[in-house]
């Protein structure tokens, strides 16, 4: 094992030495490490003095951890420049070919670069943490609990892996350092938004919420590493394909994959959609399992936590809500509020949003969005039961008629999204990053157009014209 890992450290060691000899890397790092904690400390002191006047204890408590989060973030952002040029910079300088011509494995070169890309900012971040905490102690401010400090260190480490692994993916796929730097906004902006979310969690959530943030960021970072490795091909790093951004070729590649040479709609379903559907069958089974677990968990959560909430809720509101559920709905009123096109657009949009969430997170956020959608069933079932209303008839009459079409459409659309994410981070031999992406997108489109859209259309018509009748009959 060590023999296999040794080249990783050889590559990383050389890079690290190189970085520590470059004042353009060292100077901003030194400034950030030495000056930023002092500035943050002064800011924290002023803020505490100010907030003390208003007894804003929660904010005071969270100010130091928040500062630690920010202090850790800045060195990573600056050193991103180094990671961004890890491969493309060497390519521009002509130093990559001797390395690629060596007997090193792809993953050894990749991890060598990743390791040093992560090590430099982390060294700077940890030094900043240390200095800042020393200053906090000197100013008699309260340090966060050791658990929170561990969480923040882990979160910063996960951020470093997330940003550096994304930067290295960009570096492998870029044609020039300039292009890589321009693409850096695709890392900095989402991570800045993520940081805002985490800051929100820090102020309003409890300590456990940060663990979820650590887990989420780590999963996405690991998937990014996997993505980078899957698409790291010496050929594309040196070849000409990587330089070609050809919109015509993009469209033709997509269209060729989408149509698959079919001559008619039945032929398209038989020879194109069918094979694509076969590919997503394992994902369908996985999502069925996820659906079962989600429904059960949400049902159990509701049964455990809702009684206390219902107990404390105003009695008249509960009574009104229960009455509304028991009352026979007015069919005319329903038709005025919801129409088949409205339902159709709403549901297909949900599948599309799940896909978008999956694309930006290699399926992680997409699966979470799917889980939330499906979990509603279990949660609602539990609430109805708790209110003393017979849940089964309500669900059989109100959900099942259109659900027979809508739920499979949701599962198929989500499974196509899952397949897209999983395949994208799987090595695609003989295909470039772009080709693999286009082909997978075409696969998703086949499922969406060929299966999701028709099923959602049928479901919308049933939900508008049949479900209300069945529901009224049952309630009557």
């Amino acid at each position, binding site marked *: 094992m060590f023999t296999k890992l040794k080249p990783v450290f050889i590559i990383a060691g050389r890079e690290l*030495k190189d970085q520590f000899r470059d004042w353009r890397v060292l100077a901003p790092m030194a400034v950030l490490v030495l000056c930023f904690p002092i500035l943050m400390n002064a800011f924290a002191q002023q803020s505490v003095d100010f907030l003390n006047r208003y007894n804003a204890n929660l904010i005071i408590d969270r100010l130091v951890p928040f500062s630690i989060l920010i202090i850790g973030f800045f060195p990573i952002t600056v050193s991103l420049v180094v990671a961004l040029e890890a491969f493309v910079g060497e390519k521009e300088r002509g130093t990559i*070919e001797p390395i690629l011509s060596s007997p090193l494995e792809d993953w050894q070169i990749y991890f060598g670069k990743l390791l040093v890309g992560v090590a430099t900012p982390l060294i700077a971040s940890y030094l900043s943490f240390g200095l800042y905490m020393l200053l906090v102690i000197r100013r008699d401010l309260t340090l966060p609990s050791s658990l929170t400090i561990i969480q923040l260190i882990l979160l910063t480490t996960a951020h470093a892996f997330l940003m550096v692994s994304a930067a290295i993916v960009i570096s492998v796929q870029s044609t020039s350092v300039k292009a890589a730097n321009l693409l850096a906004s695709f890392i900095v902006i989402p991570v800045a938004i993520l940081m805002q979310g985490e800051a929100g969690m820090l102020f309003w959530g409890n300590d456990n919420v940060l663990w979820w943030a650590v887990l989420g960021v780590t999963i996405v970072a690991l998937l990014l590493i996997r993505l980078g490795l899957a698409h790291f091909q010496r050929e594309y790093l040196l070849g000409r394909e990587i330089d070609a951004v050809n919109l015509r070729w993009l469209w033709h590649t997509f269209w060729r994959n989408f149509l698959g040479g079919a001559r008619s709609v039945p032929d398209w379903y038989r020879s194109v959609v069918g094979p694509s559907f076969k590919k997503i069958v394992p994902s369908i089974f996985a999502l069925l399992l996820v659906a079962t677990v989600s429904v059960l968990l949400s049902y159990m959560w509701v049964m455990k936590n809702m009684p206390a909430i219902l107990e404390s809720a105003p009695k008249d509101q509960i009574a009104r809500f229960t009455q509304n559920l028991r009352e026979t709905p007015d069919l005319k009123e329903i038709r005025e509020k919801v129409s088949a096109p409205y339902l159709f657009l709403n549901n297909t949009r949900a599948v599309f949003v799940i896909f978008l969430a999956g694309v930006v997170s290699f399926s992680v956020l997409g699966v979470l969005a799917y889980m939330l959608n499906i979990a509603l069933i279990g949660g609602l079932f539990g609430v109805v039961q708790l209110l003393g209303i017979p849940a089964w008839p309500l669900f059989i009459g109100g959900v099942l008629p259109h659900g027979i079409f809508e739920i499979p459409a949701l599962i198929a659309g989500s499974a196509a999204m899952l397949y897209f994410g999983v395949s994208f981070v799987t090595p695609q031999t003989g295909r470039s990053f772009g080709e693999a992406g286009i082909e997978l997108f075409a696969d998703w489109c086949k499922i969406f157009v060929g299966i999701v859209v028709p099923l959602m259309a049928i479901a919308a018509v049933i939900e508008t014209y049949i479900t209300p009748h069945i529901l009224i009959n049952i309630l009557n």
Partner: protein
Amino acid sequence: MIETHDLSKQFHDFWAVDGINLSVQAGQILALLGQNGAGKTTTVRMLTALLNPTRGWARVAGYDVVKNGRDVRASIGVLTEQHGLYTRMSANEYLEFFGQVYGLDPSHRTQRRDQLLEYFGLAEAAQRRIGEYSKGMRQKLALARAMMHDPGVLLLDEPTSAMDPESARLVRDEIARLKSSKRTLVLCSHNLTEVESLADQIAIIYRGRILKIGTLDQLKIDVLGTPEYEIKFAWDWDSSGLELPSGANLLSRTANSLKVRIERPQEINPILMNRLSSLSAPVMAFQEEPRSLEQVYLKVMSDAKGNTNVH
């Protein structure tokens, strides 16, 4: 040691290399000649297992470039078009680093590094940063890197470019030594004099295809025709009594010289010499009209450009 069959590489709809067949044995040097963009670098990259062939196959040092890429790379030394040197490192550190990359043990690494630096006259500058090196020094260091692990196959792109004559001679001597020690070498060069003096086989590539391949003599005959010889006499001598052997054609005659085209020089020249000797001809010189590789190359290229069938 290097064998290819129908080796081809397509980038989108462009064939950078199209059906190249090579066979280079141990102790041989093959020179690839061609314009910039002819496909030499793509060929070398396929032989280095950096690019996968679109069609055909290649075996280097006994390994298939697609199936055993790692073994191929471990068995070859590559001097790339760009030097690929890390300018913040010293020559010592640089060779040490590549020694580690190629898995040489520490004592062997140091010994090999010092030996190469000494040979290429870089020992005194071994501690200096490469950024301070001249172009020639960089080229020598890059060559030392390619030879660091003592590979059986060397792929050298312009090995003496930017070198002063003395250093270039040093490198040529080293290439000759490598050849004599049964290494297989592929040389990409625009220096035709160098190719002439070093190569056993020469391949002229144009738009991804080999137009001509063979030894220098074969190419000269193939492209420029049978060789011409000039016989100079020490004084005016009546050569009309000389009967030329079959396969030798008279081109011109003066009072003190003859110009003949000879189809099979190895066979005919001794006969001709004998006849001249028997006639007591005052032969002062019997020499082949100089025909350079440059003439061969330019003729091949001009024919190729004029031939619309070549693509």
